[in-house]
């Protein structure tokens, strides 16, 4: 039992991803929804690093690294958008941000 099957890691990644999707679908707070996206990204990163381990290559790490960098940039812009939305509408409920309708 000293070794962990690689499929466990991938299953964990899938579970975390599904939880992220669930958060995105069922939560109403924009910030929580945004955090769910980060959760999904993290889950994918775990997959990348697992693949990297399996293939004994560093490429997966690079992809995960880029995901992180992009996530950081995304967080900066996304939170700025959330601030602006809150300033203009004073709500964080995602269902009330629907001016695209009609």
């Amino acid at each position: 039992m000293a070794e962990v099957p690689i499929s466990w890691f991938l299953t964990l990644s899938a579970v975390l991803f599904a939880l992220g999707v669930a958060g995105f679908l069922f939560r109403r707070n924009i910030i929580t929804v945004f955090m769910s996206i980060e959760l999904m990204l993290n889950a994918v990163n775990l997959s990348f690093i697992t693949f990297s381990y399996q293939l004994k290559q560093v490429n997966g790490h690079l992809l995960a690294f880029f995901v992180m960098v992009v996530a950081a940039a995304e967080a900066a812009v996304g939170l700025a958008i959330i601030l602006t939305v809150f300033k203009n509408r004073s709500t964080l409920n995602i269902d009330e941000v629907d001016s695209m309708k009609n």
Partner: protein
Amino acid sequence: MQLWLIPLLPLAGFVINGVLGRRFPKALINTVAIGSVALSFAWVLKTLLGLGDLQNVYTEHYFTWIQSGALNIGCDFAVDRLTAVMLLVVTGIGSLIHVYSMGYMAHEGGYYRFFAYLNLFMFFMLVLVLAANYLLLFVGWEGVGLCSYLLIGFYFDKQFATNAGNKAFIVNRIGDFGFSLAVFYIFKNFGSLDFHTVFQQAPGASEAALTTIGLLLMVGACGKSAQIPLYVWLPDAMAGPTPVSALIHAATMVTAGVYMCARSWPIYTHAPEALNVIAVIGIATAFMAASIGLVQNDIKKVFAYSTVSQLGYMFVGVGCGAFSAGIYHLVTHAFFKALLFLGSGSVIHALSGEQDLRHMGGLRGKIPWTCWTMFCASLAIAGFPFTSGFLSKDAILLAAHGHAPWMFWLGTLTAGMTAFYVFRAFFMAFFGQYRGHEHPHESPATMTGPLVVLAILSLAGGYLFRVPEFLSTIFPASEAPEDLTLMVIASSAGLVGILIAWVMYVAKPGIADSLAAALKLPYTFLYNKLYVDEIYDATVVKPLVGGSRVLLWKVMDAGIIDGMVNGVGSRARNLGSVLRLLQSGNIRSYATWVLFGSVLVIVALGIAGGLR
């Protein structure tokens, strides 16, 4: 050998003057413009000296320009003897005319713009000459057309100048259309546009194809070199500044058609029909333009028709298979016609813009340098024995005699007419009494200097540059044997023309007017340029404009094309208003759709992967 430097130097001059020239003092503009062209000339000399006797083509490949399927076009420059001749003419005369322009344009507005355009023209002309394939040649071809348009319309605040520019541009389009068709056809037949490849395969191609290509190329050449029926733009092009007329519309650009036909000689030698057509068009143009030139009163118009006529001679030379004679005449014509234009520019400059011969006269003593240099040029164009014009024209007429004797006789007649109208203009301007109101003054040294150089070249250039011998390694030797009788006949025609002009305008000045009165009908006919512009207007321009209004605009554009576009738009709106129902504006429902899509994708991947 860094051939690219030759065109790039003027381009650099164009960029510098075009971008920064507005803020430059004139001296700096002059330095940049003339310096770049002079450096280019120097580089041509260095290159040609470095290349030795040029028995073979020297090619430089820079980069692959277009790579698409079988089409592979490189940005290649090549130098052979023909190119060498053209390079020397273009950069040499270009430099002289740049120097001249410095004096001529000194008091004009848009000084930097003028030199920038002139440099740009040099760039495109050199690209045209150096190009190693038809497409690159076409680039230069179109570029010089553009510059010609810009420079004809240089005085864009004058309606006639912009109209003349438009006319030149539009008429040239017809020729360019033929040229582009020729390029397509060449590619279809030979699978390449490189001169080398095409000419190698030319002997094996069918005569019909070669004739078609030759005729299409000829259409292009007719447009650029102002031959019947597309010559009408050139006389109007005199609306531009005189140095432009000298450089572009006498010495270099208009000869591009001749150059191109000569360059394509391997095609033409296997397409005698096309050659014959070229010769016929050439002699007809020569004769017709000369006849119109007989009665024009605007000094630049006279030389413009003279240019058309001389270009006709070159076409005759090419059409008779005497390519080197055509190029020979091209070179000498560049000397004396540039000189004639520059001289007339000097006259106009002296008279502060007066162009009408009837308001000149007796200028011989007032502007002697201009007078005597122009006399040299007039002798040359009249074919006075042993001038450069005599040599080249004689070579063409000899070839014409070998091709078809009637062409020789018509050519000789034209030569006589040429001598007459040139000397008519010369005598009217410089002899007799001054009939104007200005105070003529001699031009500055920057203008007379180039005149003197060109005068020497007009007289002796034919000996200094033995073009036929130099080009004999390129072109097939189809020169007719020397025939003393024909030479005497041809040159005596010129002498007779000079004599008549002297009698009519110097010895007995009354004869001209009474003759015009006696031959009222032909005179009016010729004076109005055979009504060609009016005929074109009635038969081509008006129907085209009318047809465009009704058929193309009202029916095609507004009815069909707009209808299709609007219909697509309204259908899309209808569809959109249905699809809109999906767009609830709710982010979470969008997310649900995304999830739905990704599940579908995963399932599809599973199926595609064979559900391992």
